[in-house]
């Protein structure tokens, strides 16, 4: 592969060219109710070329390697068509030329487990749900593991071969009574260990109970509340509330926003520290080199409440005169890399859970995550499970809890940061620009936040 890619690149006329080739093997398993809906394998092969000419960018993807030369020429032609009309340049921040081969290290490698063994494990989980009894009426289980080999070469002389492993899943219990249907799920994920899928029996039983209890729980009354988030939901919070705004493709050509996002600006209390890292070995957001061939790092975003950094591709780093952070990621060969998170974390504080809730007269304890969304400024994050807090104690369960906030106010409303930090992975991922679900991870402790708006009938 190295010779093929390098020989195609030699002698081509463009400011910059990169080629990515990817082959992957995926196993996936899906149960719905008692049926094993799917247990099968997928083999993917494909590649893409990105060429830069005088500010224009051409991108071409393909499935047949024999077409490579023709695709490189097409990408250059497309870039020239734009470059000839453009007055602005698109430059890439300089980075080290890298020649490396990255292999994966695993604890329990899913590729060494026969498909029938994997199916049996999930069938046992499925049986736990389906034999739980009323009101549990159905189940849904999704599992995948994916092994990828990536080849990267660019016209600056870098050549990287990188192996990646990604696995994850969700196990959902469904309860129903009359027209009321409620669900609760257990998620897991890893980049090195199938063991993360094991020993989930107790969590699954808890999920069955939660789904059953939710049938009796009323929807939450809408309003502004003091909330306490568990580490899982706090992880989604940091991803939506600040992570996306740290992605510089949103900022690099927006002068007004750059003023608001000046390094040194105070965003939260002194206790607040947020970072995004490619170094979290074992989590799904782990990454040694990004899809521009840049080595990843731990990037501090907020230190002691102040903005200190952001996530960059080579293009955004050049424009803002900062350093690339190894944050250029593509969902697969069919898309160009864009600025993305890896593992986004709020560092632990020193508050205990009891301290957080003890002074709350009426508030909400929100646990576990169903996903979220942001436009950069306003964001939402949905709880998997929630309880009212009354007079400093956890009280009745409520459901349909979707929380919203605003990056310029909510971070400064963080009142306490817990000491119970953990990195959590789920079977989901992050979507952006039509590229999802991308494996990302979040780490956080419990958080106490004031004045969070929760939707619902008044």
């Amino acid at each position: 592969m190295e010779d093929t890619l390098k020989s195609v690149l030699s002698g081509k006329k463009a400011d910059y060219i990169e080629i990515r080739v990817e082959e992957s093997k995926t196993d996936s398993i899906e149960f719905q109710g008692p049926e094993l809906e799917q247990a099968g394998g997928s083999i993917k092969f494909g590649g893409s070329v990105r060429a830069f000419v005088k500010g224009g960018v051409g991108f071409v993807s393909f499935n047949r390697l024999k077409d490579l030369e023709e695709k490189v020429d097409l990408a250059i032609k497309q870039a020239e068509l734009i470059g000839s009309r453009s007055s602005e340049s698109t430059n890439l921040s300089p980075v080290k030329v890298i020649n490396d081969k990255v292999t994966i290290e695993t604890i329990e490698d899913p590729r060494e487990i026969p498909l029938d063994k994997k199916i049996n494990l999930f069938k046992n989980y499925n049986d736990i749900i389906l034999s739980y009894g009323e009101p549990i009426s159905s189940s849904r289980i999704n599992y995948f593991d994916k092994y990828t080999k990536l080849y990267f070469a660019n016209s600056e002389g870098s050549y990287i071969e990188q192996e990646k492993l990604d696995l994850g899943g969700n196990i959902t219990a469904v309860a129903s009574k009359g027209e009321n249907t409620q669900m609760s799920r257990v998620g897991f994920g890893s980049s090195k260990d199938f063991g993360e899928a094991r020993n989930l029996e107790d969590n699954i039983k808890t999920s069955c109970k939660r789904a059953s209890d939710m049938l009796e729980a009323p929807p939450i009354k809408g309003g502004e509340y003091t909330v306490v988030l568990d580490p899982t939901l706090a992880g989604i919070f940091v991803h939506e509330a600040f992570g996306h705004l740290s992605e510089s493709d949103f900022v690099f050509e927006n002068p007004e926003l750059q003023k608001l996002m000046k390094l040194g600006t105070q965003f939260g209390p002194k206790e607040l520290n947020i970072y995004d890292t490619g170094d979290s070995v074992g989590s799904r957001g782990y990454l040694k080199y990004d899809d521009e061939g840049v080595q990843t790092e731990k990037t501090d975003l907020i230190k002691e409440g102040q903005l200190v950094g952001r996530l960059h591709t080579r293009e955004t780093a050049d424009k803002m005169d900062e350093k690339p952070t190894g944050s250029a990621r593509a969902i697969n060969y069919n898309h160009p890399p864009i600025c993305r998170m890896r593992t986004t974390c709020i560092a632990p504080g020193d508050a205990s859970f009891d301290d957080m809730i003890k002074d709350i007269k009426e508030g909400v304890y929100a646990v576990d995550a169903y996903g979220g969304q942001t436009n950069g400024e306003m964001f939402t994050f949905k709880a998997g499970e929630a309880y009212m807090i009354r007079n400093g104690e956890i009280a009745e369960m409520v459901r349909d809890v979707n929380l919203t906030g605003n990056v310029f106010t909510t971070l400064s409303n963080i009142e306490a940061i817990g000491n119970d930090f953990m990195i959590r992975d789920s079977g989901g991922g992050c979507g952006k620009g039509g590229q999802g679900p991308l494996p990302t991870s979040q780490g956080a402790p419990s958080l106490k936040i004031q004045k969070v708006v929760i939707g619902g009938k008044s």
Partner: protein
Amino acid sequence: MDDIIKKAKEKGEEAELFQVTHKTTPVEFENNRLKNIKTQELNSYALRLIKDGRLGFSTSTKEDNPEELLEKARQSSTFGRNFEPNLPENDPVELKDMYDPKVQEVPLEKLIELGTELVDTMKNKNSDVLAQAEVEKAETKITIKNTRGFDNSYTKSSFTIMGGAMLMVGKSFLTFGSFKSLPNYDPDTAEIKEELLQDLEFGPKEVDITSGNYDVIISPSAMGDVFRPIIASIDGQAVEKKMSPFRDKLEQKLFDDRVSLIDMPHKPWTPGMCPFDDEGTLTKETPFIKEGTLLNFPLDLLTANSLKMEPTGHAVRSALSLPSPGLHNAVLEPGETELKDMIKSIDKGVYVKDLMGAWAGNPYGGEVNGNISLGYLIENGEIVGRIKDCMFSCNTFEVLKDQLVDFSKESKWMGSISYPYAQLEGVSITAKG
């Protein structure tokens, strides 16, 4: 890959090969300038193999390994679910008006010109705007072959124009957009421009809102979120797996008389047209909800078989996944009122253009909760400004039964469903403070 079906047949196995060839060329403008031209190609194969009555499945984007594909599907069939129904063997009729040769013929320069026009329209209205645009031509060919002799394909064209922008208003991010995507080449951008200019007009002016119940107009884009519980609950698989609250409700009146949802897969020049579904069953017009009464669930072969019903021709799949029930070209029937008259009729209300995060969570309870990422306050029949930092909440099953004022005359295709605007009364908005 061509004789993979023959090879399976020789072994006495049933098999189906689903091949997708997709080519798309988008021209992209970012932050007011022409930035990318992409050419994305995908050629994929998905094989379903039924051996000893059990279903096996494998997929590949490599064309040179039919044996591996066959072997993987065989292996997977040893665990697969029972597959009792027969694969289709009928002859589909050819549909006209789904392929327009002009789409591929249009030169890149014309795509660039259309995008430039949208960007300039926004820049001329407000020079601080960061405008985005995308003009894309695409072509998709679907081929299905099976061991019962079905061997058919169709090719669909698609032409998409999208415009949008981000504008900083103090510390507020105003993000808006408009698009159309149809099989035929139609370079008319008047409606897109009108919508973009409207958001540029009203978006920068912010007004306060307090929590309460309001008359609400929901745009086709936000209808995608508000209608989600119904789409999820009519789904044949959700019925089969006992997740859907509608599972015992066929022939029952669940909604207001004006709620009719009808799938029209042969409607000319619409986005989801297809002569047969993604496992070869012929498609036809199917009413799911008619005048508020639930009439049909979209079903594929397997769900129909297990529910002991007839397949409706609603197998839908992506290039590399198994089929499951879905919609092709569903039309939520429009109403009598024009959007402008809906706005005029409201003394104090909210016009919801986009919701954020409302897709998350359990759809089967009917609850929809989302941040109003783009929405306006209406006072005395006029839009007065943008509202922010507030949540929209409703139970779709309830509001479309008792709180529907009307649907609009105007409709818009949002993917596989055409939605009108909906006016609802007494919908809860939760705001700060």
